[in-house]
């Protein structure tokens, strides 16, 4: 059970959270100007790295706020969390919390 540091509530159990996939995938300002391939890329393509990954979480069983996190997908380790709209913190390679 991961311990996730909600930027608004502090560290809480994983069961209080829901996962929201890759972070910083911006909704196109005007989808109508995109061709099918570009729209398809926005709609269906996501990164799937082994290692640090910026992703979205929501504290569904708590403050119900969305936030972003940097998590290592191989070790599950959270390198940091940050509120929506904030810049991602810089994570050094192998930097453990």
């Amino acid at each position, binding site marked *: *059970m*991961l*311990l996730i540091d909600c930027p608004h509530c502090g560290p809480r*159990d*994983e069961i209080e959270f829901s996962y*929201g996939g890759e972070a910083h995938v911006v*909704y*196109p300002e*005007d*989808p*109508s100007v*995109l061709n*099918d391939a570009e*729209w*398809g890329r926005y*709609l269906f393509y996501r990164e799937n790295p082994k290692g640090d990954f910026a992703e*979205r979480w*929501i504290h*569904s069983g708590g403050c*119900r*706020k*969305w936030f972003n996190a940097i998590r290592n997908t191989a*070790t*599950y*380790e959270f390198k940091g969390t940050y509120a*929506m*709209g904030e810049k991602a913190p810089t994570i050094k390679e192998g930097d*453990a*919390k």
Partner: protein
Amino acid sequence: MTTASSSPSRRTDAAPGHGIDRSQPITITFGGQKYDAFAGDSLASALIAGGNLQTANSMYLDRPRGILAAGVEEPNGLVTVKARSEDDIDETMLPVTSVEATDGLEAFYVSGQGALDPTPDPALYDRKHMHADVLIVGAGPAGLAAARAALQGEARVVLIDKENRPGGSLLSSRTAQIDGTDGAQWAADTIAELSENPDFTYLSRTTAFGNYDSNYVIALQYRTDHLEPKHREGVSRQRVWHIRADQVVLAPGAMERPIVFSTNDRPGVMLAGAARTYTNRYGALPGQKIAVFTTNDSAYEAALDLHAAGAEIVALVDSREKASEAATAAAERTGAELSLSSAVIGTNASVMGDRLAAVSISELDADGALTGETRTVDADLLAVSGGFSPTVHLHTHRQGTTTWNTEIAGFVPNDDVTGEHCAGALTGDFSTQGALDTGTRAGAAALAAAAANAGFDPGSGSGDAKAPSAQVADEAPLCGAEVKPLWLVPSATGSTDDSFVDLQRDQAVSDIERAYGAGMTNIEHIKRYTSIGTANDQGKTSGVNAMAVLAHMIGEEDLGAVGVSGYRPPFTALPFAALAGRERGDLFDPARVTAIQPWHLEAGCEFEDVGQWKRPWFFAKDGEDMHQAVQRESKAVRDSVGYMDGTTLGKIEIRGQDAAEFVNRFYTNGFKLLKVGKGRYGVMCGVDGMIMDDGVTMRIADDRFLMTTTSSGAAAVFDWLEEWHQTEWPELDVTLTSVTEQYSTITVAGPKSRDVIAKVAPGLDVSNEAFAFMEFQDAELSNGVPARICRISFSGELSFEINVDAFYGLSAWKLVEEAGAEFDITPYGTETMHVLRAEKGLIIVGQDTDGTVTPDDAGLGWAVSTKKKHFIGKRSLEREDSQRPDRKQLVSVMSVDKKTVLPEGAQLIAKDADPTPKKGSVQDPVTPSNGQVHSYGFVTSSYMSPNLGRPFGLALIESGREREGEIMKSLVNGELVEVEIGPLCLFDPEGKRRDG
């Protein structure tokens, strides 16, 4: 049934008996025979004290077996424990070594397979959460030393241990002294001393069975089985502890391995450490003429202890070439002959029974082959030690890696789990002083780390804690001298069929050979091919041996490269009842009920689960079945008037300056220009353009909307709106509130509904002119309750929805009942609602749609605005694929025979599909065995309609709308049925009934 113990007592006072209370005699009944025992005994030790170590025969090969171990790793002895009291049930498949003997306990052996007691278990099981700065697993010398070092300053320290008393290996020792005190006593004193600190928690009889991310350890505690029945009342029988710790100290010890040789499964072959535990902890001698077979020094300590307790040591067999100090000393003191470079190559039973009577000993040459004469020695116990495997399970649960340590011939954990500290035998140091040293260091390190993380003062103990000092006479820890593992003792006959690796699965070396012969060289494949390690004991005594036998076969000298199959939670078998805890019966899942529920219950309606909601399904009258009730209800609504509890409809209030803009971005049709006082049906799509929900949204004020959603989609829609607001459009001024449970909603539908509403809300002008379709009015009900009444229809009939504060829901319902009495108003449930809406071709999201259906596919193209520049899903609907003319479209289907109700999910195939196609036929076959069957679509909803006078359904069919009037086929219960494709709306297609 015999009543008196027929076996001689093997209890001895010449051994300490650290774990038993000789002043508290108890009696147990095992296999119908009574055994005298002492408080503190395990079932296994009580049986061994009674001279009986034979278990049930093995499950697959029916071979006689005996108790091998003294702990959770026991592979042979599995028991059923009879109900301990009247309100208890039988439990089965428990290791005989793990069950604590209590007065009056009845049990018997099972052969690898037990029967579940079908009686409901009335015992309580619960769960508790706990936070710790330092959690220590294992209360042996290492764990206790760690606790002493960690319990400083403000640290909260939790120590859990699976045994009924602290001490771990100290309980199995004859001579261990810690700081001048008897080891077992020191353990008890240490717990007593630490327990004076309120920040210390010690949980005995508690097994850590899983170790998860961020130091989350789950443990099972047995709380009442050892108590007298009167003390069990009101106490949960088992508790699952969820412990979140900043730092974890693992001190679980190590488990001894058996040796693989021919007939190594005979009753009387026992792990040397287990023989020592039975002797020193329980004062029960497992044998009288004991042979010892070892690959390392540890067994000599056992030999001396057994000898001191009165047993005769008849042979010392050592795989190593040179006599170690411990070997020489043991030979001298026990008088037994020491055979070096030797192995036990076989065992024999006496003609009288199954138990070991003699062992055959042979010398081994430098290559490990048998050499010289084989000699036979009479013995009733063979104490074996194939070395020790550190109990790395909890470490590997966290993806912690291990390294093969050739010095101890075992895997030791690497330091690669954050916040974890290993101590004691787990680290590969098997000495008592080593346990105290590593434990103290681990405890101090854990304290320092926890204090730094939590920002408290670690007190004086941090970093410089002094380890207690151990004095152990005769201690011969495995690491004290060379270890020479004997992974596979050659068999005299050449057959390896009875050289067992996994005793519980009855798998021998020959089975691994077969797997290898079939091409398997990976231990994970071997495990699954042979089933080694998959039994109740999860291969605790067989894992490393299986790996080593495989390594031998594939010629791999580096055992670490072969590896063992992964250990997963749970560490020991545990009851589902404990995992379920209180979440049984009514507490299994929360049930949501409406304010009108008491009336429904009284009316005797059947309920349908919709999400967590209990919704009235149908109201059967006078012995009606469901079909009859639904036909009556459906007809009543169309002929006169019916009413339904619609409370579960999701309701979300959307407020703010940008509320209109916000709502407008979700629905496929326009909401910006919706007038206050009016509602509009809307379809909501995902970004992929597929229908995700629908419902009517009303504009309460310029800056205030009330959105309704499907009953089961309410939470998802609410989350969806929040997600977009928070992550994409935070600049919009909107606030979202779920108000589903704040309102009770009563639907009144049918030609007479206007009359009913006129009576219920006397001040309201209900005429069509004053109160048009898709409008709402605030009104006062005749009982003074304020209500919002809407003209919305999900049945095609004239229909009203009364919304009141949930507190008044029941009284409003009764008001409708009274007012409708003269029109014979009929309560109806979800099934009738489904029939009525389907007759009108109105979809239910999730039933008629499945995430691949666009609004146009569902016949809702009219609700997709062509003028709106943007709504979620719009760009996807413009994709070529979303506009293919051969997409599946929702249409109605009717069986041509007017009798068959098509099953939901029935596939529609070509009209000329041929059940018996000839070769070269161009027609589609009917069954896949004759070739590919093209499915044009499938039925999503299907009912008998009293209003159409025939069965009908809705179906998603390729180019469905073009096929109106076409006949297709469907296979129903093995019969081909002709099906006519019709328009989506079959009843009142002009919509004349809507306004009454």
